[in-house]
């Protein structure tokens, strides 16, 4: 009997269930999506699904473009609100967890319930549902994901760097621009990925907060899989495109943040 096949209860054995889980629920589904992307209705090999998506026959590219823009804008707004938030939390309430908790608290409520309530509030205020409300919902939902990594990074900055900068004669603006900001880049990058990637694939928020009028990439994929029986192919192609975007985003993240400590959570 070959030595390799011997079963030993080593520490490594505890990783097997996880490996099996990964294989079954991550790798196998991805392979199925990949295969589906090349199959037509009669399970024959075809490139037609790619052709349909990339010629924009069903408006797929338009939707992708809109999704990317909305994701980007959401991220920018989240960063613009989240950074000052995280900064002041870290600066003045570093020891007070209650304030941080206040920002995480909404995350404990199911996001569907939150989004439905947001819609109810908008309706009560007679606000027309549309792009603005969708954007509001996205920012509201993803803001904690921006604040948390930023807060973690900012809190962990060694205060002596700031003191050193002050000792060397830097004013407040310079201290911020030359020490705090560069040191918090890993947090920014991680916050951006945690906001941007879910934001481009969301569908429930746009569905609820625009009454399905704003049709995003996530909605389109959802439509191909749940409302039809024979367009899994195009849906798979769109999922693959999404996957490529996620990978690209991660590569960019890894390139920009060499810092091992707080790199992307994804």
């Amino acid at each position, binding site marked *: *009997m070959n030595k390799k096949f*011997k*079963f030993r209860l080593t520490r490594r054995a505890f990783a097997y269930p996880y490996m099996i889980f990964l294989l079954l629920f991550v790798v196998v589904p991805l392979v199925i999506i990949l295969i589906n992307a090349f199959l037509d*209705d009669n399970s024959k090999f075809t490139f037609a699904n790619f052709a*349909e998506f990339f010629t924009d*026959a*069903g*408006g*797929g590219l*338009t*939707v992708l*473009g*809109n999704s990317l*823009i*909305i994701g*980007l*804008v959401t991220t*920018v*707004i989240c960063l*613009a609100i989240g950074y000052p938030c995280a900064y002041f939390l870290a600066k003045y309430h570093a020891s007070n967890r209650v304030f941080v908790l206040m920002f995480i608290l909404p995350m404990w409520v199911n996001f569907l319930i939150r989004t439905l309530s947001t819609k109810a509030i908008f*309706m009560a205020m007679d606000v*027309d*549902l549309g*792009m603005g409300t969708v*954007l509001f919902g996205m920012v509201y939902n993803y803001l904690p994901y921006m604040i948390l990594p930023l807060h973690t990074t900012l809190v962990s900055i060694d205060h002596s760097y700031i003191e050193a900068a002050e000792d060397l004669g830097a*004013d407040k*603006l310079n201290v911020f*621009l030359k020490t705090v900001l560069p040191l918090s880049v890993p947090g920014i990058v991680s916050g951006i990925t945690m906001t941007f990637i879910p934001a481009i694939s969301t569908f429930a928020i746009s569905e*609820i907060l*625009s*009454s*399905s*009028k*704003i*049709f995003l990439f996530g*909605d*389109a994929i959802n*439509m*191909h899989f*749940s*409302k*039809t*029986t*024979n*367009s899994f192919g195009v849906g798979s192609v769109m999922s693959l495109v999404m996957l490529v975007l996620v990978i690209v985003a991660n590569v960019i993240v890894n390139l920009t943040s060499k810092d091992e400590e707080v790199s992307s959570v994804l």
Partner: protein
Amino acid sequence: MKKIASLLFVILLVCFAAALLSACDVSEKDSLVIYNWADYIFDEDLEDFKDYYKQVTGKDIDITYVTFDTNETMLTRLTKGDSNVDVVCPSEYAIQKLIEMDMLIPMYYFDEQRYTDAFSSNVNLDLYEHNSDNVEEGIIEKVSDTFGQIEITAQGDNQGKKVSMVDYFVPYMYGTLGILYNKYAFDELGIYDEQILNDSNWGILFNDDGNGNLLHEGLTGNILMKDSIRDSYAATVFYLLESGRLDGLTDENGVLYTEMSVGELINAVDDGLLEVVKDALTEQKKQLFGYEVDFGKDDLLMGNAIVDLAWSGDAMYAVEESWSDEYDDYELSYYVPHSTGNIWFDGWVVPKTHNPAHFDAIKLFINYLNIPVSAAQNLLEIGYSSAVKADVLRNDTDAMEVLAEGYEYDIDDPDSMQEFEMYFFENSYLDENGEIVCYDEISDSNWRYPFASAANHNDDFRNIDSLGVMRDFGDKNKAVVTAWNYSRSAGVNALPLLGWTALAVAIAVGIVVLVYIIKRKN
């Protein structure tokens, strides 16, 4: 090595025990696996059916009840092989698909001899009563007219064989596609008028008065459309026909769309028509509050929107919820625009993969659903119209008791019962002078029972011929999905948003740089 062996042994033992347990389960009791729409039966535990089964066969039965929420999910599950189910309740076009794929067995429910002959010999038939006569003939006729002979296309022994859908299914529920609207909101806009709404027809959903003009600007942003390809397609085709936008257009064979019957028109899915539908749907977006599947009823009840494309059962639920003390009336109402409309059916079928040991249970279950009381319970619970004839229900005391109780009418008071019967089966009531009045001047007297002859004496009675049944789109399916996706994605442009954000970021960075430069200079 020993460890592997012992591990395998344990696994084997567990498997064996599990197999033994499940085997025991089957051998002791009869069982049945039902695959139905969610919320589509009176009691998912089916206690009454269990009693009936015991009464007829003397045996207990175990029921596994599984649900689906769209025909597409159901079809995917059945066709991809995950299918240990005995009876399924798809819609007519899904049944057509399943027959084409040769996945169903014929039951011949409407041929009593053939149906009962198929019972295995160990079932005593003395207590069995065949209920096929209770089923509305109109449905059978309509289905035969629409689907004719369906050709089995799947490879195998039956390929090329032509069969009739009626042999394969037993109707369960049916309903119409129509317009659910807030009549008081319409009144406020000044468009709650039979003439105006009849002229506008399906154009209400497109805010079109029937002549290409805006029906009312107050409707803009208050219209809901169904997030469902087939239903939206049907409504759009009807609108195009009624508004004259199909005049002079012909299909691939040169037949004028305007010359077709309603049934032919909604099933004539060709590229030319699809293009017009796509344009109409894209144009419609400006008028919409949005698309809905689940929240439409709520949006109407809360006043977020005032008109919606709806199915009759959903609509009935919404209407009954919409009682307003202020008006002392139901705020919402439902009707099918005159001259054109869509009617659909759901029915029970038996997939080939059913468990042969469950055959008796399958047959008894399907027959059980056509007992008037059971039909009354189900239609009360679900809200759609039961395939059991209205007259059969009216003449069955038990069924009427169930219905009257459900609607809180007094079963012992003949006046109350007459009032209920008029309300329920004819959608009308007697005014002070004893005249029959429809509940709502726009509505049909027979939208709940389009086949019923009972409402014939009423002027608002409409002809069942004006309602068409939709077949499966067949090889046009993909084109329809693409067109629908196209119109759904159109009309949203995020580019200005990007511009504004870029501008804001530029300004912010500019200010920081400016401050920095000024500070440095100082």
